């Protein structure tokens, strides 16, 4: 099966003022990718996502979008870190999900009833009928994540980008979320930033490590090389019939 490239990131460098946050990153995302992005805090993970979303201008390098990704706005579904939201803002779950349908071509006209049907379908798919008309201030962490996942999914994106969806949620939600993502991966590529390396490596197809540099190979096994040269604070994970974690040989006296 030939895989269509959705995005090709070429020699991407991003700096804030004179501080280089992301240096010469290369990555291509194909149709059915499920890439976990790991790396230390401040290592440039969120910066990479924001560059892909067009929220920050790269200092140098290129982002090449395929023909199928012409409309970057709605072809990418984005779930930001939910802690940045003002949860006293007067808006309901339904309205948040609906806002995911705003498009540049139609921002003047508002929304039509067809859009509302679509929101109802998404609400049903995510099983959040009961909270559909609640203000976001009354939601739990998991309900909040579901709501923003709904907003990301409603435009039927070809690429789903998630920034730490596994924070502020309990274990049960986390495993439900990953099951859902696996299902979604049948119809869209997924880029997922996480700090929970142990869990994601059992779900994602490949892992990219970002620590100013981006290190990536098409496998979900984290190589010693990724650990050593990129200083990623992680364990080595391998996969077998029994899920297990293998730590690289290390000196306990250190």
């Amino acid at each position, binding site marked *: 099966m030939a895989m269509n490239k959705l995005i090709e990131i070429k020699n991407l460098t991003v700096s804030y003022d004179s501080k280089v946050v992301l240096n010469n990153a290369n990555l291509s995302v194909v149709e059915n990718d499920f890439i976990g992005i790991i790396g230390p805090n401040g290592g440039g993970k969120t910066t990479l996502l924001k560059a892909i*979303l067009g929220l920050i201008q790269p200092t140098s390098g290129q982002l090449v979008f395929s023909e199928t990704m012409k409309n970057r706005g*709605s072809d990418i579904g*984005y779930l930001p870190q939910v802690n940045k939201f*003002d949860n006293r803002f*007067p*808006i309901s779950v339904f309205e*948040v999900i609906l806002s995911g349908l705003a498009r*540049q071509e139609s*921002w003047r006209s*508002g929304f039509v009833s067809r859009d509302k049907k679509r929101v109802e379908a998404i609400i049903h798919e995510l099983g959040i009928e009961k909270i559909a008309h609640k203000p976001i201030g009354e939601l739990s962490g998991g309900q909040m994540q579901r709501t923003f996942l709904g907003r990301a999914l409603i435009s039927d994106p070809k690429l789903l980008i998630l920034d730490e969806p596994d924070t502020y949620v309990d274990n049960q939600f986390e495993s439900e979320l990953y099951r859902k993502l696996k299902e979604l991966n049948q119809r869209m590529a997924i880029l997922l930033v996480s700090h929970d390396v142990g869990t994601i490596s059992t779900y994602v197809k490949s892992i990219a490590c970002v620590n100013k540099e981006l290190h990536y190979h098409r496998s979900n096994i984290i190589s010693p090389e990724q650990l050593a040269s990129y200083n990623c604070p992680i364990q080595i994970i391998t996969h077998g019939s029994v899920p297990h974690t293998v730590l690289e040989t290390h000196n306990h006296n250190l």
Partner: protein
Amino acid sequence: MLELFQYNFFNNALLAALLSAISCGIIGSYIVSRRMVFIGGGITHASFGGIGIAYYLGLNPILGAAVFAVLSAFGINYFTQRGNIRQDSSIAIWWSLGMAIGIVFIAITPGYSPNLMSFLFGSILTVTQIDLLYMGALSVVVALLFLLFFRVIVMIAFDEEFARARNLPVQLFNYILMALSALVIVASIRISGVILVLSLLTLPQATANLFTKRFGPIMIASIVIGFLGMFTGLIISYYTDLPSGATIILVLTSFFGIGKIMLWGKEQLPFFK
């Protein structure tokens, strides 16, 4: 009470109250939701500089206030984004700078300025035809903007980054709404004065927010609550001879108190059943 409506000044005051309720109800909901109330405070006080200069030059004070309000609104933004000054400091700078300029120019203006107090504390009963025209035009512009672009405005207010990822004209809307906020504040200075005007943009919203947690209903309810508050305040101030601006604020505050008690009562209800 009916004889009140025979007076031209009273009808003008009522019309001013209605127009102000509309523009403050809408813009106030936006300001409160975005947590920009303190910016509103900075703009309000900075506009006093414009009032002072207009006095000195013999121009319409509201015109001076409008220019200063818009300038300070953009100035606060500019200082914060480019000047690397934290937002609250930037607000404080414009706040006191405007007041200082106003005080200096009023001091060097020959003669006594009898209307000065009306700008500090408001005087809805002396509202002029020109004021009404200005307020009317502004209410129409604000209402039209929100009618046409309601979803986009709420979306940008709620999650600016997501709106930018969607290629929506975020900066354009931010600037338009900033300028309109400044102009609405200036228009309402007539009613409650520089010192009290902020509550016209926050008290109705806080009261509405007790009963609904959605942007649209808060906006509509704020318009109604704001008008009822101004109407009641006007009547009370007429019969008690108290300053109208302050009376209106006290009425609006008591509306909030009543709302709180109603909510509390509703919570207690099951115990009495």
